[in-house]
């Protein structure tokens, strides 16, 4: 039997992402989870700088544009003064993992009771596709025109695995938006992350492998295939740190 499907009121507005950009899917999933957890009147989004900033235009919820990379710190301030409000940072990989690596890691280190959503599209989308710390080896970007030289620029790094392995966090997962099956799985990850926060379990991060058709120079369907073929082998999908109650169950 068919299920009712309706874009949540929280984000039911046109947004100015490029055609085929994954942001729109992730935002909808976040909004669906918020509604299902009855948090729509109890939510603040500290938003990063980059394409993630475009979220602010279409969202009908409290949000604050944070200085570049600092969303996890802003979220910390918000959460400490309003511990019963659900705080979700929404950032890209450039924001959270390049300029904001310190703030991102330190929030995880403190096991701050916030949920971090990072859209990893392996480049700086907003400024036109520069190399990110998550760009793959040999990936061509506008600042690695001959392909990323990992010997000189470092290897792409895996944030959820890092915090899951090193820090006392509540939940860490990576999903993607390449297929209905993966989208549904991603929604479960997001919901777990939010539930972890609502239950006071601590820091949760959900990284999303997301296409950037514009800067990858691919059509949206091909961009999704690129994730399947090239990104997932490097960035495995799954849960790297599960919630304690889930492990017990």
């Amino acid at each position, binding site marked *: 039997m068919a299920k*009712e499907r*309706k874009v949540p009121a929280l984000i039911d507005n*046109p947004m100015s992402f490029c055609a085929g950009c994954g942001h729109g899917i992730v935002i909808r999933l976040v909004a669906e989870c918020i509604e299902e957890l009855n948090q729509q009147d109890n939510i603040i989004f500290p938003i990063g700088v980059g394409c993630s900033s475009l979220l602010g235009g279409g969202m009908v919820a409290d949000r604050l544009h944070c200085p570049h990379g600092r969303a996890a710190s802003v979220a910390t301030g918000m959460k400490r003064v309003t511990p019963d409000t659900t705080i979700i940072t929404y950032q890209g990989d450039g924001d959270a993992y390049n300029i904001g690596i310190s703030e991102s890691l330190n929030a995880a280190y403190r096991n701050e009771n916030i949920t971090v959503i990072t859209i990893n599209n392996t480049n700086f989308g907003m400024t036109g596709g520069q190399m990110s710390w998550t760009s793959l080896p040999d990936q061509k970007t506008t600042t690695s025109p001959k392909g990323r030289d990992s010997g000189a620029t470092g290897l792409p790094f895996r944030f959820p695995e890092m915090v899951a392995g090193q820090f006392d966090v509540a939940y860490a997962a990576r999903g993607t938006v390449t297929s209905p099956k993966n989208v549904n799985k991603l929604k479960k990850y997001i919901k777990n992350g939010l539930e972890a926060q609502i239950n006071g379990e601590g820091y949760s991060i959900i990284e999303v492998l997301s296409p950037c058709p514009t800067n990858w120079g691919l059509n949206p369907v091909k961009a999704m295939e690129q994730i399947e073929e090239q990104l997932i082998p490097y960035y495995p999908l799954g849960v790297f740190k599960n919630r304690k109650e889930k492990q017990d169950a």
Partner: protein
Amino acid sequence: MESINLKSERCKQCELCFAHCPSDAISFSNELNKAGFNFACVDEEKCIRCGICYTMCPDGVYAIAINPQAKGEQ
């Protein structure tokens, strides 16, 4: 009976719905929407209301509604 409703003006013709539709119900209009895209159209006969288009659409084009009368009959 479920109905499928489209906000065509939001369509950016990324074709992710088209690529994943299990019943080949989606095509693209010859007309352009305000944003200048050949927007997605659904063949209601072929459509099985599975919601995959909703799931894959980044732009909130699709909605599937359950007819309230039909709900009452169940």
